[in-house]
């Protein structure tokens, strides 16, 4: 696999505070990479290092196989968490200026801006001043400015904060589009719902250190603990429940005698569910049999708690 960005033991210290401690990441090309962690974990510091706003005390960053250099700036797009626009400047003029700072020439920038303004249905905003726009409107413009120079790597820091659900969806679709067209994306957030939908890979940063990274599906597999949720239709539920609790490790159960409905969850020693299925076969109608997979949020909380408990 090709990696668009690789960090090797990146460390950054502000005074006595260690903001990043030997963080090594491999961010694959053409995918969405989730950079997760609680507030103050060091995500923004890492992102600023990638954008060459600040420099690491030690460690190296490689971009597309080369050591990260100032000229890479024009191939990176960055939407910071703390973002804004010049309030008294007109939207179009401002977008042109920021695009030119990224190295686009004026005409090309204008052409692409017109295209994006049409696409996001904001064509008539060109001559408006930013102070006349709502927060959500300004966010759309910031998004356009971030992607306008068609960077190889896009970095979004909490991209959905400030968006209403409808616009958040529009932006989410655009992010997926960009990924499908070959852009690599780093997606930094502490909100886990969006991670499940978008990210193929994640890294967890906690207290300046990376504590977990990899493919999201692999991580989920590693974190599932063989808990199954079962729903049965059976007449003598109590009786069956007794038998079950003798043979298996039930974690919760409920029997509704009116509807002859028995629901329970159980923990198996391995991921092998043949025994329980064989046991149930013929004894009841199986309505539901699912393995519960932990959400990213649960993994996140569990990992952080484990980490804290170990210290």
């Amino acid at each position, binding site marked *: 696999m090709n990696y668009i960005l690789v960090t090797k033991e990146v460390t950054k210290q*502000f*005074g006595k505070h260690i903001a990043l401690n030997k963080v090594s990441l491999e961010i694959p090309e053409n995918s969405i990479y989730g950079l997760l962690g609680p507030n103050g974990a060091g995500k923004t510091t890492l992102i*600023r290092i990638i*954008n*060459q*706003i*600040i420099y690491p005390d030690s460690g190296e960053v490689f971009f597309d196989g080369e050591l990260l250099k*100032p000229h890479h*700036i024009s191939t*990176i797009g*960055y*939407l*910071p968490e*703390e*973002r*804004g*626009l*010049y*309030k*008294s*400047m007109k939207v179009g003029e401002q977008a042109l*200026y*920021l695009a*030119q*700072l*990224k*190295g686009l020439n004026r005409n090309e920038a204008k052409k692409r801006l017109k295209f994006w303004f049409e696409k996001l249905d904001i064509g008539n905003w060109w001559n408006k001043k930013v102070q006349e726009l709502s927060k959500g409107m300004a966010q759309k413009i*910031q998004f356009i*400015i971030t992607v306008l120079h068609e960077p190889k790597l896009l970095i979004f820091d909490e991209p959905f904060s400030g968006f209403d659900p409808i616009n958040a969806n529009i932006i989410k679709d655009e992010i997926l589009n960009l990924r499908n067209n070959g852009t690599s994306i780093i997606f930094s957030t502490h909100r886990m719902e969006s991670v499940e939908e978008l990210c193929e890979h994640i890294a967890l940063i906690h207290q300046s250190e990376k504590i977990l990274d990899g493919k999201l599906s692999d991580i989920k597999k590693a974190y599932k603990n063989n808990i199954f949720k079962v729903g049965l239709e059976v007449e003598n539920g109590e009786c069956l429940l007794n038998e079950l609790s003798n043979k298996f490790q039930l974690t919760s159960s409920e029997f509704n005698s009116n509807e002859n409905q028995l629901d329970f969850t159980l923990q198996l020693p391995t991921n092998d569910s043949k025994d329980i299925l064989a046991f149930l076969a013929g004894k009841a109608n199986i309505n539901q049999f699912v393995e519960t997979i932990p959400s990213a949020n649960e993994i996140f909380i569990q990992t952080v708690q484990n980490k804290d408990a170990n210290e």
Partner: protein
Amino acid sequence: MNKLPLIIRREYLAKVRNKSFVVMTFLSPILMVGMVVLIAYLTKINDNEKRIIGVFNESIYFSNDFHTTENTSYVQFRDISLQAAKDSTMSAGYYGLLHIPNEKSLEEVVQKAYFFTKEAPSASTIDQLEDLFQERLRARRLQDFGVSTEEFALMDEKFEIKTATFAGQQNLKGINVINAVVGGAFGYLIMMFIIIYGGFVMRSVIEEKTSRIIEVIISSVKPFQLMMGKIIGASLAGITQFAIWVISATLLLMVAVFVFDIDPSNFNSTVRIASKVTPEVNEVNKIALEVWTDFSKIPWFMLICFFVIYFALGYLIYSSIYAAIGAAVDNETDTQQFIFPIILPLMLAIYVGFFSVFSNPHGPIAVGFSLFPLTSPIVMLMRLPGGIGEGGVPIWELVTSIVLLIITFVGIVWLAAKIYRVGILMYGKKPTYKELFKWIKY
């Protein structure tokens, strides 16, 4: 691609298009000229006020002394009581009543003379009356001493010593004053420019912080580039504003002179006919002529060259400090604590410059402050109208001062850039000096 021109362009346009900037640029000359015209007009009105003064003269020493002048006329009372004279002065609405009693000697008369008014009288009226008595007393004394008025006039003749440098340069009198005034004007211009446009730079940095656009921008350009772009952009806007001020103020003054009929050519023609007018006017014109000669002796080309050098370096040093301050705080109210230490050397330069350069342009204090980099742009410019080399600023001082200024410029810009780089990404609490010091080491 170099992005500095882009940044300069934006900073310049953002400043120049700003409404308050436009208003300030075009309103200030109008206000300024308006003030001058108003003051001139009011002074004229004030002078035009006619005063009628009642004179109740019982003495033989004063008789035909009360001549009606442009703004004072006199009404004589005779053969009534003092009280009656007072009453009629009041009821007639005259400005006041001068009572000169009948006494044996002039001294006694003068001692006992009184001027009665409704309110405290104006200083000019008092002067007028006092001069009258003074003149009379002097004439009387001269008579007592047996000196004629003509003889006395000869005694009053003024003496002037001639001056020259050892190298033979003639007539140095007054040069220091003129030079200090011209240099002071340049120094003052630099100070005002630094304070006004340094403040621009600072506010523009704060604006980028509060609008949260800063991180977007510095992910595209180096913070140093952004800072320099701001400083240069603001200074270009400042130069534009100054140019507009100078041009429009000149035009407006010309219009005002034309409309209000203040004839500036008076000056030249009076010089030409100087021999025919009274000695006092002649004296004034002689001074004016001297001022003009001294003025033309100032090495303007050299002065303007060095003005540009000192102005550029001084402005760059101070405005990068302003940029660093803007980066360190979140809002303008927090800046006071940091601005005071910058204004201090500027004020010191102006006042020390005015007091010490005025009296002794090559004294130790003048030399010291014209070498110290934070004050040299102002103080050195006050000394430079006297020339360079012999009789003026020694070349080694000039070179040392510029070298020190350049070293300081590099050092300060480096420090300011460090603070700026860290500060623009810091939000929240106003930093202390100790924290600023730590930022330099990040």
